[in-house]
């Protein structure tokens, strides 16, 4: 088993804050050093917002856990400066196969579009993910950014006051207290913060269990996602096989509702399942096993007073769609720049309402898709199973039935249609995919890519037209990126940003979502769009 689980990455160290007579005030305190807490902290540090991350542990997560990362989160990670090692280490895949009983009924190819820096999907164990993020934190610290990781710091009480949050912390050397302008809870689906504040977490728990067995084995399965409905080795249930780096294979078995968890997790029982699936002679090492239940839930609001929730702490979905960590990173992508503006005093605190609006929209989309997948994978009534099996029976021979087959609808980025930060679309003939609220589609530009050229602030992207080099409105500056379709050998820029329009000006937010677009430059329109995108209109 990998030693990476066992090495303390951010061991407890005494902080000068623990000597203070009155609690030291920080701008932002993050609870939880998982992928979401670290993602947020790195994003804030890049915005020069000092941040302290508290975690009761001091190591990467035990076991692979989240393994599947989609294009949009990879783009976010790339912006944070830690995407490259993840893509390098990760296993890229595009093909999936679906089996029903003994037969392969169809396969699918994600057919990633050309001209994007990031692949459609990579699989990577969560412990690598966290390891690379901690390395990035260390790099930023070396550059002098004020980002602090405090292991062995367990938050035990929270007081939400009008102008700050009071935090009580236990450490191996006893308790101490802190204050924060803003507290961000990234402490997972069982969020102790949520519980301490007595906040709701409403939704659906599906009465079924899945056993995860991550095994290390030399196997000649291709790098594809294989999903079985009702296979001979797991009758009446489903199963999934997916590859991770280092010859680690993720295997999920649906095992039903009335089970003895302890019994199921015994190595000899897992071994029996694995041999039924992979053959009696396989050689493997069990790296990690776990049992989980499908749940689709979210908080009613994602912030209360000065406490903000992100990732699984705010919303939880069933797996098989890669919508957990992927949507959590979209939360932090959305939140970091808003907090920065609020702390700078260049946006009102009510800008946070747009975090709720946009990310609840994203969470609801994920919950809807995830609930539908779950209903297909684990039909809960006789008639639901009859239709499910009818779809699977038809799908082998008939193309029309394949779109109904639902073994997980894979994560796509949220488009913030109807967001209060959007300016109504002003670009006649502009492509649908880059409308206000959408994340910017990537485009190859010479030796690089468009997303690399969008800085950490607001950008005025002008294509084939004049514009000012910078506009400052209410303390918020948008900087111009001038592009021309004359330097667009692949035609992707025109196709993804102009459509049938001869020229365009886009206002792009720091999280690379489109705030507004127009046929040509008009400074008054840009000023209005900046005010709107910062919660002032």
């Amino acid at each position: 088993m990998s030693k990476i689980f066992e090495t303390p990455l951010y061991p407890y160290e005494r902080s000068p804050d623990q000597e203070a007579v009155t609690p030291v005030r920080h701008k932002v305190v993050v609870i939880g050093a998982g992928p979401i807490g670290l993602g947020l902290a790195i994003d804030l540090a890049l915005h020069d917002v000092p941040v302290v991350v508290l975690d009761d542990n001091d190591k990467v997560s035990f076991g692979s856990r989240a393994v599947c990362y989609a294009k949009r989160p990879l783009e976010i990670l790339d912006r944070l400066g830690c995407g490259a090692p993840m893509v390098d280490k990760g296993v890229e895949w595009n093909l999936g196969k679906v089996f029903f009983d003994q037969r392969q009924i169809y396969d699918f190819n994600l057919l990633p579009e050309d001209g994007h820096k990031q692949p459609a999907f990579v699989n990577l164990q969560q412990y690598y993910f966290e390891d690379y993020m901690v390395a990035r934190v260390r790099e930023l610290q070396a550059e002098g950014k004020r980002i602090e990781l405090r292991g062995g710091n367990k938050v035990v009480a929270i007081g939400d006051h009008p102008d700050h949050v009071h935090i009580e912390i236990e450490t191996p050397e006893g308790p101490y207290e802190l204050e924060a302008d803003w507290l961000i809870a990234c402490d997972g689906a069982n969020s102790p913060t949520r519980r301490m504040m007595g906040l709701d977490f409403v939704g659906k728990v599906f009465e079924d269990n899945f056993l995860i067995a991550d095994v290390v084995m030399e196997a000649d399965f291709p790098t594809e996602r294989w999903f079985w409905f009702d296979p001979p080795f797991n009758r009446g249930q489903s199963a999934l096989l997916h590859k991770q780096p280092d010859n680690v294979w993720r295997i999920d078995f649906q095992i039903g509702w009335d089970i003895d968890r302890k019994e199921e997790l015994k190595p000899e029982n897992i071994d029996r399942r694995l041999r039924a699936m992979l053959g009696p002679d396989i050689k493997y090492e069990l790296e990690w096993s776990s049992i989980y239940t499908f749940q689709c839930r979210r908080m009613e609001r994602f912030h209360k007073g000065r406490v903000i929730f992100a990732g699984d702490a705010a919303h939880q979905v069933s797996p098989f769609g890669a919508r957990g960590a992927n949507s959590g990173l979209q939360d932090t992508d959305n939140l970091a720049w808003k907090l920065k503006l609020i702390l700078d005093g260049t946006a009102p605190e009510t800008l946070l309402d747009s975090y709720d609006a946009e990310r609840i929209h994203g969470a609801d989309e994920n919950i809807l898709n995830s609930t539908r997948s779950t209903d297909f994978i684990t039909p809960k009534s006789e008639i639901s199973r009859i239709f499910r099996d009818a779809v699977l029976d038809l799908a082998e021979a008939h193309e029309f039935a394949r779109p109904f087959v639902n073994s997980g609808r894979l994560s796509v980025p949220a488009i913030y249609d109807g967001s209060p930060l959007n300016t109504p679309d002003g670009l006649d003939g502009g492509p649908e995919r880059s409308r206000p609220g959408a994340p910017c589609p990537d485009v190859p530009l010479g030796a690089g890519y468009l997303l690399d050229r969008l800085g950490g602030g607001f950008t005025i992207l002008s294509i084939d037209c004049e514009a000012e080099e910078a506009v400052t409105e209410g303390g918020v500056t948008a900087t111009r990126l001038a592009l021309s379709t004359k330097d667009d050998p692949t035609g992707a820029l025109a196709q993804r940003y102009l459509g049938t329009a001869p020229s365009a000006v886009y206002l792009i937010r720091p999280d690379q979502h489109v705030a507004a677009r127009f046929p040509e430059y008009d400074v008054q329109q840009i000023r209005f769009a900046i005010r709107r995108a910062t919660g002032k209109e």
Partner: protein
Amino acid sequence: MAKLTLTRNIDAPDDFYAELIAAHEGLSKAESDALNARLVLTLANHIGDRAVLTEALAVAKSAG
């Protein structure tokens, strides 16, 4: 307005009805249920129009 055809539309209705019943002959209840489900899905795809399908569901539900 209603787009679902609710007036007679099949030539020789007796023939079709007999064919429908004959298709189920000799099948167990489970096999018949499966056949009906495959038939519904196949016909639904042929119709395609989402508004018509929603209307058809409403008609079928209210008639029972």
